[in-house]
């Protein structure tokens, strides 16, 4: 267990180097907010709230919650100015995160490396099993261990980035798209394709144009594998001989036919038969359906079963080059259904190969139903579980104007009256990821590469990259608030406050004397962790709990644990 408690909370950041930097930036852009015309319309909206309240709301929704002192920093800078900066993440220096990322070895491996390692681990397991005559062998080899450590780092990295990045809105959007375009880390090749998917498909496109993101996911080996499109072929299509031999790369529990060729020719022959039998022989609707239902037009987008089949036919041949080696996107002309198709009333004439798919994706990206579906989800994420129509309309209008520029859509949402409406303030319950990351930020903890925080997020019901179904983790409060999950949140809060999470260093410097009274401790916790949202009841309960605790360290830990696990901190 590596943890040290340096003291207590980082006090108000006046005078801290970080805050000084913020104030300088704020001063440079003091007057006009630098917003586009969409935002000017409603710059008055935040004025309903005090500058601190608007800053807290923005940090709760557009970031993973405030760090100590951050509410004052954003209020001083001007909340709209801070939002404007967040919408251009590239220009925000993120050196501290970049330094921490260097500890994550997983980032040194590309999907080919990971595929190779995975294959070796599988091979070792098979050999051990053979050697043990089929008996279960639970030995963990060094390579096994490395693979597990890297998988843990991959999950932890998502939490660490969310916690430490200065580009907070960008990280929020990465999480949003990771769920919108969900893949499941546990499915076969996705075990080694998913890290690459996050790095090279989701992250580069998270604040770009929706169309680019949609095409990138459609061409990503991780998605092609996850929703089976890589094996969807026109009925009757025959692969070239060379491809037929490696027709079915095998994953997981299935034996690998190709690394241990059996000696017996008859058996070899039957294996070849089986390989040919397993070769794709027709279309697979899986990706086509989810592309329409989840990624673009939505389940009420007006498509029929015939549209699903036509989309699947258009995308036949969209495949992966040597998936078992972590290969890239590859279009197989031999597998493509060359006939004419029709999707949602639009004709796709025969014989356009891969271009048909690109045309289809561009068409889907620009359909009003898609704009509405995705905008609705964004408003649900940022404004209310039950998104107001006005918010969705504003987002759709911005989408049309900007041809699907995600930044402009976000700008419209945060500039609209709904985002700032009092009834939407603290109206959402945090997801497990948001809860854990906001707690880490609230106590200014400094997580390392050990996957402890990712494990806590998993314990609370949201194991990252492990949502099996293609719909991604839900955004609704009803999905996350239940008896067991709440008790788990309380336990996690107490553990974090007590510094019991290995890899999480709670940096704190209270400035409180050893003899601080319960009242004083509660006041500081309210100011620094709950940013003044602590209810009278909570103050009373915590004060009473501290009354008989003489050890000041214990008192602080208990107060922080109760505050983080209490009802106020579950909301954002």
């Amino acid at each position, binding site marked *: 267990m590596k943890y040290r408690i340096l003291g207590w909370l980082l006090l108000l950041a006046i005078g801290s180097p970080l805050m000084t930097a913020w104030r300088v930036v704020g001063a440079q852009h003091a007057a006009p907010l630098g917003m586009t015309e969409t935002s000017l319309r409603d710059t008055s909206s935040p004025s309903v709230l005090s500058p601190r309240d608007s800053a807290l709301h923005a940090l709760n929704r557009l970031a993973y919650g405030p760090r100590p002192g951050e509410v004052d920093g954003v209020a001083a800078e001007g909340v709209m100015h801070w939002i404007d900066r967040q919408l251009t993440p590239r220009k925000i220096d993120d050196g501290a995160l970049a330094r921490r990322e260097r500890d994550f070895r997983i980032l040194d491996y590309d999907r080919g490396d990971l595929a190779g390692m995975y294959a070796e681990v599988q091979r070792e397991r098979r050999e051990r099993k053979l050697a043990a005559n089929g008996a279960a062998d639970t030995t963990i080899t060094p390579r096994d261990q490395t693979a597990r450590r890297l998988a843990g780092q991959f999950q932890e990295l998502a939490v660490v980035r969310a916690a430490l990045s200065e580009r907070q809105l960008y990280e929020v959007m990465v999480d949003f798209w990771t769920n919108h375009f969900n893949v499941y880390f546990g499915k076969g090749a996705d075990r080694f394709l998913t890290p690459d998917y996050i790095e090279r498909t989701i992250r580069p496109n998270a604040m770009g144009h929706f169309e680019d993101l949609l095409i990138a996911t459609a061409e990503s080996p991780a998605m092609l594998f996850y929703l089976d499109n890589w094996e969807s072929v026109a009925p009757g299509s025959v692969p070239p001989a060379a491809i037929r031999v490696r027709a079915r790369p095998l994953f997981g529990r299935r034996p690998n036919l190709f690394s241990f060729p059996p000696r017996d020719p008859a058996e070899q022959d039957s294996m070849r038969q089986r390989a040919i039998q397993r070769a794709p022989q027709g279309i697979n609707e899986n990706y086509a359906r989810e592309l329409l239902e989840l990624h673009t037009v939505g*389940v009420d987008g007006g498509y029929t079963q015939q549209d699903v089949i036509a989309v699947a036919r258009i995308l036949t041949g969209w495949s992966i080059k040597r998936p078992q080696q972590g290969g890239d996107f590859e279009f197989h002309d031999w597998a493509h259904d060359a006939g004419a198709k029709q999707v949602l009333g639009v004709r796709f004439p025969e014989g356009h190969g891969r271009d048909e798919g690109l045309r289809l994706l561009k068409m889907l990206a620009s359909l009003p139903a898609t704009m509405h579906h995705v905008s609705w989800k964004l408003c649900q994420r940022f404004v209310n579980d039950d998104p107001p129509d006005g918010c969705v309309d504003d987002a759709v209008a911005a989408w049309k104007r900007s041809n699907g520029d995600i930044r402009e859509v976000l700008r419209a949402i945060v500039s609209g009256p709904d985002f700032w409406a009092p009834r939407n303030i603290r109206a959402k319950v945090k997801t497990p990821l948001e809860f854990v990351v906001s707690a880490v930020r609230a106590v200014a903890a400094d997580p390392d590469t050990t996957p402890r925080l990712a494990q806590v997020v998993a314990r609370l019901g949201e194991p990252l990259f492990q949502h099996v179904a293609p719909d991604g983790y839900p955004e609704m409060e009803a999905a996350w608030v*239940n008896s067991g999950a709440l008790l788990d949140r309380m*336990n996690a809060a107490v553990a974090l406050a007590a510094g019991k999470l290995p890899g999480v260093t709670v940096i704190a410097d209270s400035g409180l004397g050893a003899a601080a009274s319960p009242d004083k401790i509660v006041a500081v916790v309210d100011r620094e962790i709950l940013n003044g949202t602590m209810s009278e009841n909570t103050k009373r309960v915590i004060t009473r709990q501290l009354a008989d605790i003489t050890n000041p360290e214990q008192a602080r830990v208990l107060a922080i644990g109760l505050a983080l696990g209490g009802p106020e901190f579950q909301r954002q």
Partner: protein
Amino acid sequence: MAISRRVFVRAGGLALFSLGLDPLFLARAAYASFRRSVVPSDPPILVCLFQRGAVDGLNMIVPHGDPSYYSERPRIAVPASDVVDLDGHFGLHPRLAALKPLWDAKSLAIVHAIGSPNSTRSHFDAQDYMESGTPGVKATPDGWLNRYCQHDREHQDTPFRAVAFGPQLPRILAGSAPALAIDDLQAFGLRAPQPAARDRLTRAFEELYAGSATGLLSSSSQEAFEAVQTLRRVDPTQYQPTDGADYPRGKLGKALLEIAQLIKADVGIRVAFADITGWDTHVNQGAGEGQLAARLAELGQALAAFTRDLGERMRDVVVLTMSEFGRTIRENGNSGTDHGHATAMLVLGGPVRGGRILGRWPGLDPADRFEGRDLAVTTDFRDLFAELLARHMGASTGALDAIFPGFTSDPTRFPGAISG
């Protein structure tokens, strides 16, 4: 996680043990474990298992007497010689063989060609409809099992009346009636190294939520603390399944073990729910062996262990399996199956009129198929659900109308799974 969980569990166990040194507590616990068997009839219990991802009903309950089954599935049909025959036409998938004794004992009935009147092939919409109990209507705020609890006036309201096993409370139990979500019974509650510290934390959080929480945070926390209170008299870490019941490893086995444990602990459980995933077999689903076979083996073993563990208590228990829809009759291009329509559901337990395949079999001929491709639905799932609630759980006709709004339950359409 695993390591510290074990530590927590051990700590929790010790804490409970030290509480249990109270002789009165020991006496009560001992009494509790025998008391029920002398009572003539216990309240009914319904256990629902949701096969998420749409199970291939045709490979689970195989129509081996239908030649089309074999012609449509050259690569994935279960050979007739491997099927565990039930009635000459249908048979169990070989990896469900553990259920055959229950069939023979007339404790297992199968409803085939059952499903939704709604034609969606979306997992999420179809699951939503099956859980809300209102196919085609998305606005229904609560689930039908929750509505049953809302209208159940006969049975005592206890914190454990409705329990879902898993990290999330499923749609089927969402609603105004209290329902618990338990991911790990052994770790349910506040954790602290000493009982005194644990009790203190529990009290403090209880006061925090009682005084400041609103909405779902308020009701869920209240249910949680009531359940924690009840669990103090049951030591979940000390449970031993009886009669050598051997639950398979994995989430389902664990969930069913914990359900059995709560049933035997007499904490007032009436409705239990658990998920089983891994049924969305678009690729390489296998025939007698393979992907689907492995999932079915786990299901069969878990159900067999559950019934063995509960023994006599099964007399009041009905287990229902459900899945959002079935899969295509014809195998797809990847030795798998795509989203289809009707599927099969299992009903087992003491009150079941088993040993029978229920529902009308529509056949597999192209002319008999739904939209020309999928197994047609001949039993609306609400007919089966309503029958279980009416004949097993004691729901009145009036209650059924409220539990399934927009649906008129009609005993003549009940599939006949429960002795009427």
